[in-house]
């Protein structure tokens, strides 16, 4: 049981400098100080917040090792509050991952390596990154959490798996470039993400923290719009614009229990049925003659 059911979260809707890790780390320190002053207990930075997004060949030189000295500085950010930040991780076998790291009380608690690497349209991630191979939840001081990085949420199974692990919140750091201009007041991408995040929160009866970056890289704009959504699908806090901002929200973690009492969707989920059916689909696919 969670003793104190209130949680103050902060989303750092920031504009990282492209390929300048030292400058970005300093900016992380500033945001952490500002958030701590505001009483934030869980602070989320966007995807690749330490490096910027469209790195191309800068991926290798922007990377850090989980065993390296930079990790000491990152751990240090979380002395007073929990911190989720984005970095390029180089493994000992020299594979590079687009990763999101969860730190608490000066320790690394969890690493999520982005599984779905968009490589279409304006995206080229598989050229530079290796893909992660798992979706795992982890325990925090505020209940069970899972991380999905940007494109991960465009695959239903990712959030579904975390949900069946029993997460209270899904954290989604993002670097989503804006596109799709119509007569609407918002970009097509902003509309789509709003729809997806709210759908997940409501269908999976979980808090959903979406932290998107802002700024421009090589002409592409990042639209911000960071939002905190409750387990009933309601938006608790949202930054409407694409300015740098610390988005604050106070969550009542008891909302998850109350929502699941009212809407026991998770209780009624048929995991074994799902697995059996997926296994059948896989079997039939592999049996095709050509």
């Amino acid at each position: 049981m969670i003793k104190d059911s209130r949680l103050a979260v902060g989303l750092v809707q920031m504009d990282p400098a492209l390929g300048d890790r030292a400058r970005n780390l300093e900016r992380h320190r500033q945001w952490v100080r500002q958030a701590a002053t505001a009483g934030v207990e869980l602070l989320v930075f966007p995807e690749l917040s330490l490096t910027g997004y469209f790195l191309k060949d800068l991926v290798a030189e922007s990377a850090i090792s989980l065993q390296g000295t930079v990790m000491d500085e990152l751990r240090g950010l979380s002395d007073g509050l929990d911190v989720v930040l984005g970095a390029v991780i180089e493994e000992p076998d020299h594979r590079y991952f687009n990763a999101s790291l969860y730190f608490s009380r000066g320790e690394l608690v969890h690493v999520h390596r982005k599984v779905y690497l968009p490589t279409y349209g304006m995206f080229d991630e598989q050229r530079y990154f290796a893909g992660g191979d798992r979706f795992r939840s982890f325990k925090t001081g505020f209940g069970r959490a899972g991380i999905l990085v940007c494109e991960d949420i465009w695959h239903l199974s990712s959030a579904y798996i975390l949900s069946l692990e029993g997460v209270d919140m899904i954290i989604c750091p993002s670097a989503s470039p804006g596109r799709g201009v119509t007569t609407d007041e918002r970009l097509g991408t902003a509309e789509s993400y709003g729809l997806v995040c709210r759908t997940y929160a409501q269908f999976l009866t979980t808090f959903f923290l979406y932290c998107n970056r802002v700024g421009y890289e090589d002409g592409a704009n990042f639209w911000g719009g960071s939002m905190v959504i409750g387990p009933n699908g309601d938006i608790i806090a949202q930054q409407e614009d694409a300015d740098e901002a610390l988005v604050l929200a106070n969550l009542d973690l008891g909302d998850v229990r109350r929502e699941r009492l009212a809407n026991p969707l998770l209780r009624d989920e048929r995991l074994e049925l799902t697995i059996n059916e997926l296994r059948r689909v896989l079997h039939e696919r592999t049996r095709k003659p050509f």
Partner: protein
Amino acid sequence: MSAPVSLSEPAFPPLRINPELVRRILVGFISNEVRKVGFERVVLGLSGGVDSSLVATLAAEALGADNVLTVIMPYKTSDPKSKSDALQVVQQLGIQHLEIDISPQIDAYFAHFPDADQKRRGNKMARERMSILYDQSWVWRALVIGTSNKTELLLGYGTIYGDMASAINPVGDLYKTQVWQLADAVGVPTSIVQKAPSADLWAGQSDETELGFQYRMIDQLLYYLVERRYSVEELKQLGFEEAFIDDIIRRVRENQYKRRLPLIAKLTSRTIDRDFRYPRDWGH
């Protein structure tokens, strides 16, 4: 001469834009991409047409009127109305301006080639203007800001290393009919938005006459072809004439070279832009 643009005639629905949203993104683009590389100012050629008037307006909002230098560069056969339209924009925005008559330098060159045709002269003028803008960019410590819209970039209706040359281009992803919508919304004088588009190499020249089609028609076709990736068969089913489709596709294909850096003969394992790939905003 084609009919003037009628603002009362609404744009093709899929190409209608929310001007406020687009304005915000483009003003942010100019401010961000100029300042983060250490500049405060931009310089652009102001023709009196809608594209450069729009860019000047966006730049003035992004950087402040004092940080926008426009250069008006008429040739002796340019329509005098172009200059007065350009000056109207300068006055309205309170931006800086310079006027340089390019006739002497153009005429000095073509004295060697008196038989040069209009197209050759037009290209030379476009490159002469580019050369002036880059010289002023050095004097003024300003980035050259481009004004080519998506329609003309796709059709190749511009001069490579002439009017197509710039450091940043805020309107290169807007079709011509979208430029009209945005220009109207941000307060570019209506007379400029509504006049027939022209390269103004001589009085009375018209883009639409030269291209052979109206921008409204071209943009509709480009929307289905480029944005939606319709096949030729599907375009015909929509009712576009086959000759029109073929002509536009040919222009897009034949002018691809203008939209790319020069080809480099590959020898090493990391050839620039092919496998030596860095963002231009490297370190910013």
